[in-house]
């Protein structure tokens, strides 16, 4: 009955075991950073392999529930695993300069990244609100530490702001869970789905309040306006080597959780929560775009742009089940763009520093053609220009929202997209039109960022020109 099967937890076990092994070898042997890399790489590869196996076995069918309905193995969780572990691998490669600069504490950094990956995958795979809360906290607590890992004044400020607002959001989310539990009498998502599908609540006030608090709590995690205030400070203060992973990870985990919670247990109340989601989405798009224009630090600009992107992704959720494909396509390709963009930032201003003023990008086209091309491509993709994944993603979310009847939201988002091109193209202009300030020599780029930028650029172009394989795949990645 309880259906205990440790193979269902395979990806989590793989990365957690790698983290444990890494820490134990670290205190026993004090090995070189190369050893950490091998252990982490094997763990992530094993987790990725197990996720792909889960995809082959579990896609398109009804979910298999394990551990007394705590864990769901379906296309949704398997695809989430593929995205999360790919992202973790690329994120570690891009931030390897930070790991070596931390000396012996680098082992803790790698272990925390692995544990955060386990948490993010669990967020996509949990079939019970208890499980979802714990997964969210595992990922979030790791993120707080990672944001402050260099211990300097910018990083500690980022860590404290992230921590206080994140913990506040977790408490709000938790209160939402308690209210939904009160209204439905169960914490299992499958149980809630059948209860809400069969029962008509005479006084749904408690349930609606619970749904609202759930949306607020998860909205904080994905940095949707008006819950986005932490994002710019955290993005700017956190060391550049890990910012990409933090940004992409929070989005992937948060949207996986949001998509499953809204479309599985609360599906019957679509008409109640969809307008609220649409309002949050439009607010995010507008606020993110307007404030991004005013930034002169590229990390703050990317933070506000990520607020806008959270809005675009939320637009697709207004369609309920029908929008999940668009959510997955957008969030997975956007995560790659973010990791790629921050890999360039880490290469330009150093993986262990926080701020990265826009002025230091002047003439990057001459100082490092490859990094400039990579960042330029990411800017074009985030702006939503055709032949990139950004365009296909935006098309998908707009179509989903129009089908759901939110034309006004889509029109606003379209206007914001055009306005957003201004600050994305401004970066490209700085890189290619302006002369490098002072005596800027050619930029020395490590192998890590170069690989990360190469992989993400290739994915952005290939999937932008031929998105159909991924789109076909996503038909099977719906939650149970």
């Amino acid at each position, binding site marked *: 009955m309880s259906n205990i099967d440790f193979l269902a937890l395979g990806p989590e076990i793989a990365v957690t075991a790698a983290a*444990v092994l890494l820490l134990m070898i670290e205190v026993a042997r004090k090995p070189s950073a190369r050893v950490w890399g091998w252990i982490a790489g094997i763990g992530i590869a094993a987790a990725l392999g197990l996720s792909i196996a889960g995809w082959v076995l579990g896609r398109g069918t009804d979910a298999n529930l394990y551990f007394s309905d705590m864990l769901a193995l379906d296309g949704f969780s398997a695809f989430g695993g593929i995205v999360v572990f790919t992202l973790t691998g690329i994120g570690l490669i891009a931030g390897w300069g930070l790991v070596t600069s931390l000396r012996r504490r680098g082992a803790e950094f790698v272990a925390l990244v692995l544990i955060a990956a386990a948490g993010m995958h669990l967020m996509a795979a949990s079939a019970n609100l208890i499980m979802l809360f714990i997964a969210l906290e595992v990922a979030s607590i790791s993120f707080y530490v990672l944001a402050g890992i260099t211990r300097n004044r910018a990083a500690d400020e980022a860590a404290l702001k992230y921590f206080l607002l994140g913990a506040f959001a977790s408490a709000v989310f938790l209160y939402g869970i308690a209210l939904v539990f009160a209204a439905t009498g169960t914490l299992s998502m499958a149980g809630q789905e059948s209860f809400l599908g069969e029962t008509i609540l005479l006084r749904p006030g408690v349930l609606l309040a619970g749904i609202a608090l759930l949306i607020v709590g998860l909205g904080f995690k994905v940095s949707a306006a008006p819950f986005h205030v932490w994002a710019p400070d955290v993005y700017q203060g956190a060391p550049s080597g890990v910012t990409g992973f933090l940004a992409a990870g929070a989005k992937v985990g948060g949207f996986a959780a949001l998509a499953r919670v809204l479309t599985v247990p609360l599906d019957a109340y679509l008409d109640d929560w969809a307008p609220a989601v649409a309002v949050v989405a439009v607010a995010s798009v507008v606020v993110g775009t307007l404030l991004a224009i005013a930034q002169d630090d590229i990390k703050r600009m990317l933070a506000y742009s990520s607020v806008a992107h959270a809005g675009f992704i939320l637009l697709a959720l207004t369609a309920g089940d029908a929008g999940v494909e668009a959510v997955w396509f957008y969030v997975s390709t956007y995560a790659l763009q973010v990791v790629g963009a921050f890999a360039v930032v880490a290469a330009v201003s150093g993986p262990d520093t926080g701020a990265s003023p826009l002025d230091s990008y002047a003439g990057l086209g001459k100082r490092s053609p490859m990094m400039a091309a990579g960042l330029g491509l990411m800017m074009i993709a985030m702006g939503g220009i055709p032949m990139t994944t950004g365009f296909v993603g935006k098309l998908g979310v707009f179509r989903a929202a129009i089908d759901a009847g939110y034309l006004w939201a889509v029109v606003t988002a379209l206007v914001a997209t055009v306005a957003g091109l201004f600050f994305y193209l401004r970066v490209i202009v700085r890189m290619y039109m302006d002369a490098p300030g002072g005596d800027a020599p050619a930029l020395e780029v490590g192998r890590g960022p170069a690989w990360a930028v190469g992989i993400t650029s290739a994915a952005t172009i290939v999937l932008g020109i031929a998105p159909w394989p991924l789109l076909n795949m996503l038909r099977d990645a719906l939650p149970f």
Partner: protein
Amino acid sequence: MALVDYLPIAIMFALALVFAVVSLLLSRLIAPHDPTPEKLEPYECGIVPLQDPVQRFPVRFYLVAMLFVIFDIEIVFLFAWAVQFEALGWPGTIAVGVFTLLLVETLVYAWRRGALDWNIPHRERYRRVVAPEIEEAA
């Protein structure tokens, strides 16, 4: 449970309140009142207080306290498992075993990283100053 069932508790509460107030009032009224500076000092087992008890703690207390709190709280999961011990069977036992091993692993890591060493300055001083002096003398 009806509200009437709480009546004994309410009576108990009222009695305790009355007893406390009455005894304090009585001692104030009856006892002789003759303060001296010694009598007004805070009582510390009869010894004259040496310093203000409100002091700043060394930050090292924080680390040990935090480690204690975390290990202390994590044990609560064993309680949940113990309640359902028979229903969970071997898989549950294995899971709890793994959980306990993870706790041990954390402890080992904290220990090897020096989080449990209390006298870091002393040890440091011994390594830098005392040990070379002994070597020199020998």
